[in-house]
């Protein structure tokens, strides 16, 4: 797969996705259908336990569906022989709790995903410096996560998510652990990078003000998508 492949087909297409746990006793997803075009910014909203995070895991190939299919550029993701390669080259994850590795500096954390790429040691370093500069942390390269503020940590995580230049960014409540000031600036950063670099962004949030900045909002309830619509025109960040 290559992120540069352009086609009329959607970037991602979910067909009747279900995900069950505990031998079917827990039905996290009950048949989800939708498609995402390249370059879109989609917010997934819904109450706790509605299946938002489970859906995000399936999109990022962290988990496999119980039934249904997920097509990435027309190829079935669950049937891919190498899910790690898909995650490494096509997906960039941004987690609510940042999930930086505590024993590595900001610069090193950003380089971690690059081990699966083609870059040499010096290229990895150079690229990581460039990404950290992009998120405004050029003066924090050698800081360990414990020495960074919450907002700075999430910026490092954003830089890490871009390490292998993925076409799809998956963000799970990326501002959930931040104060409102940092939440705004990190969200602005993510949206700016998504728009400038033409990446596709799927963002899970329960905050309607964040969701309204997306081009489309998928609202989930009880394992299903109950609405798929654009936000009010004056709020949508990706709308003309």
């Amino acid at each position, binding site marked *: 797969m290559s992120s540069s492949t352009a086609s009329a087909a959607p970037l991602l297409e979910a067909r009747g996705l279900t995900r069950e746990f505990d031998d079917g006793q827990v039905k996290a997803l009950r048949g989800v259908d939708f498609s995402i075009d390249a370059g879109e910014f989609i917010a997934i909203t819904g109450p706790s336990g509605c299946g938002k995070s489970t859906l995000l895991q399936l999109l990022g190939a962290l988990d496999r569906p119980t039934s249904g299919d997920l097509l990435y550029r027309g190829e079935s993701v669950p049937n891919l022989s190498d899910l790690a390669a898909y*995650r490494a080259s096509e997906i960039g*994850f941004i987690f609510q709790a940042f999930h930086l*590795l505590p024993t590595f500096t900001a*610069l090193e954390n950003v380089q971690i*995903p690059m*081990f699966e790429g083609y870059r040499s040691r010096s290229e990895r370093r150079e690229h990581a410096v460039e990404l950290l500069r992009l998120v405004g942390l050029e003066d924090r390269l050698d800081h360990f996560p414990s020495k960074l503020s919450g907002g700075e940590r999430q910026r490092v995580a954003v830089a890490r998510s871009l390490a292998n230049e993925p076409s799809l960014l998956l963000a799970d409540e990326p501002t959930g652990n931040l104060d409102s000031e940092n939440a705004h600036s990190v969200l602005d950063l993510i949206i700016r990078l998504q728009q400038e670099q033409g990446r596709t962004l799927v963002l899970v949030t329960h905050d309607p003000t964040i969701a309204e900045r997306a081009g489309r909002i998928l609202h989930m309830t009880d394992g299903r998508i109950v609405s798929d619509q654009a936000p009010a025109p004056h709020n949508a960040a990706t709308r003309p």
Partner: protein
Amino acid sequence: MTFSTVVIRGLLRRPLRTGFTLAGISIGIAAVVALVGMARGFQQSWEVGLKARGTDLVVSNRSGSLTPKPFDASVSDQIKSLPHVAATCDILVEITSIEDSDLMILSAREWGGFSWDNLKLISGRMPNSATEPAVVLGQTAAEVLKKKVGDPIQIETKELKVVGIVKGGAVVEDGSVILSLPLLQGILGSPHQINAIDVRVTPSTSEQQLQALTHQIEQRIPQVRAVTVNEHLSHNEGFRLVEAMSWGTSLLALLVGVLGVMNTMLMTVFERTHEICVLLAVGWTRQRVMRMILYESAVLGLTGGIVGVALGVIGVRLLDKTPAIRGLLQPDLGLPLLGLSVVIAVAVGVLSGLYPAWRSSRLTPSLALQAG
């Protein structure tokens, strides 16, 4: 940053635990170096000692102990008549406690035999006759026993006199109490008993002729075995037993090391479950995660091996200074043993890391989203 940075950083995460694990594996490897080095050194010291005496063949009784079983001295007359035999020297050797020392080599030699020839007097004189109640001491034996020329020395029930201190050209010779054969036979009350015959062959004897001679001796005198100096030691069951016991003890120590490393690596995997899931989520393959754990455990092994070898060498050097060991052997701390010890340590590390690595590769990356 390279992959090895990731590996080292993983180990430094818990420096105290890594340190204790290293200590465990180091002690195991130190045991290998010390015990096996001493066992092999013991064997080699005898070999050098025999060569220093100018011996080509050793005739002795098949035996499972360190000193061979005694046999009748008349056997040497039969050997003297064989082709290529230049000279023989009857020997009665015992490893025994003398006065306050733990273990000393008591080496009685046929009076006038060639095995006396290589002894160089440092002080005093050689015994005057086969029956003079006198011994000469190798220089290390003199130091260990704290004896000088003129001092009395108690051998079994008899008091003899130290008449000379000699240099023998080999650790075993220097560590021996040397006396005439009839004197020791008299003390032990076994007048015609010897337990080895040193055989010197004529200078022109080829290796094949030497082998033929050994067969001839064994055919003619079935109760003894004739072997060249090199074979003598490698075939000696006593030496083999000592080496086997050394390996056995060392392996037990190593097993403790294996369990230590495995425990540490398993703890690492459990503790770093979340971190490993994040690595998988950002695209690391399961193979890379396994490799990280295996490398960490191999680095533990390698470092433990190097530290263990150093500890072993220091330990052996210290032991070598104790009166119990001194003069009895020159420890073998050659590169092959030290290299083998490090290789064993790395193998121990890798082996101990296999199960933890497999466990780490079974983790599901979705835990990264749930945890934290």
